[in-house]
């Protein structure tokens, strides 16, 4: 089948890495489409049941709320103890007059994940309920523009590193928010990676009739 002979339908895409024109059929469970020319993974399997992803997203919202509200780590030295919450890692920088850095940390740790969760919820819910479908392309665009700035997994590594760093100085207590943060990152990352980009845009295009 020649590409020129027919109009470029929604099953044709260009590989992101090498621009090869490809025909990608809908994929079955655990199938992945690789580019013929460069081997780049063009499309992967998408979770068909959006209800499960929506559930995961609500769970991650709850866990993020817990991580923000409860103390994350406690630390005692010289007879005094101190606890911190998730937000404190940015607020303490603000108090030390590192305004830019403080805002950056808060943005990366709380702002961007929150934005991604909310936008993804809006997209999936309006696809499911067929509400406000005209705005879907805009939300989809915001999601994919912001997506690669997600650093939740890096922050979790940061928490583990600082734990080992202070464990040598004094006793460390794990707060509720520490476990909430771990649960949040698992739910969030699973939800984030369970929808394939090509498939999601196929649905958005169909719903918004563009």
């Amino acid at each position, binding site marked *: 089948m020649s590409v020129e002979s027919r109009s470029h339908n929604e099953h044709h*895409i260009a590989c992101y*890495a090498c621009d090869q024109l490809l025909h990608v059929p809908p994929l079955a469970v655990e199938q992945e489409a690789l580019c013929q*020319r460069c081997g780049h993974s063009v499309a992967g399997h998408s979770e068909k049941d959006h209800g499960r992803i929506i559930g995961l997203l609500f769970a991650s919202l709850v866990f993020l709320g817990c991580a923000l509200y409860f103390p994350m780590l406690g630390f005692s*030295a010289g007879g005094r103890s101190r606890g911190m919450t998730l937000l404190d890692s940015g607020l303490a920088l603000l108090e030390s007059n590192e305004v830019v850095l403080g805002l950056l940390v808060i943005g990366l740790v709380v702002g961007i994940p929150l934005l991604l969760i909310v936008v993804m919820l809006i997209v999936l819910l309006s696809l499911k309920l067929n509400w406000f479908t005209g705005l879907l392309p805009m939300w989809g665009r915001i999601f994919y523009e912001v997506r690669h700035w997600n650093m939740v997994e890096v922050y979790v590594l*940061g928490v583990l590193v600082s734990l080992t760093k202070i464990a040598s100085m004094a006793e460390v207590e794990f707060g509720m928010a520490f476990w909430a943060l771990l649960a949040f990152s698992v739910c969030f990352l699973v939800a984030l990676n369970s929808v394939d980009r090509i498939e999601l845009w196929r649905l958005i*295009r169909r719903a918004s009739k563009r």
Partner: protein
Amino acid sequence: MTFPKGTAASRGLRSCSICSTLMTPRQAKLSSRCRVCGASVSLRKPYSIQKTMAFLITSCVLYIPANFLPIMETTQLGRTLQSTIIQGVVQLWELGSYGVALVIFVASVVVPILKMISITWLSWMVVRKKPISHAKANQIYNLTEFVGKWSMVDVFVVALLVALIQFDNIMSIHPGPAALSFAGVVLFTMLSAQAFDVRLLWDKEQLQESDLTDLEAKN
């Protein structure tokens, strides 16, 4: 400019980087915006190499204060100790936390340097008028993209320690000026990698095995 056979660009089709909708030359004449999502669409990212280099130079400049100025100030019983990234790694190593020292060393020292070198190399490959090895270039690009954000771990560690260890004179930790510069290094290398258009590598001719043997014969 001619594009390799089989690519979307060789047929004048522009692919949207957000929603992968293809735009025909006729549609492109009417608007440069994607008809589905509204993102700006072009055959190749405009001024890709120039932007890549601009972001890269910014991060190289920031890399100097990030390594020579202190990233953390520890005050313990009235004494203040400033430590740079490397000193922090050495302290961790001396405390016996070899694993953590290694993580910080790789994330904060090795990765940024490797990233700067690989982005420069990739840009040089694009600009140079010679065939390149696609597979090798592709591998290096993928690695550069994957590894990028993990350098941020040191900034998060500083933020966490500053928040946790505040006991006035007994012991307190404050961020040093290098923390912001280092965050800048990470962000600008990420922007640099994003500004780079990988497709430019695949637009170049593939280096043939025979070319290599020719070169060896000449040498």
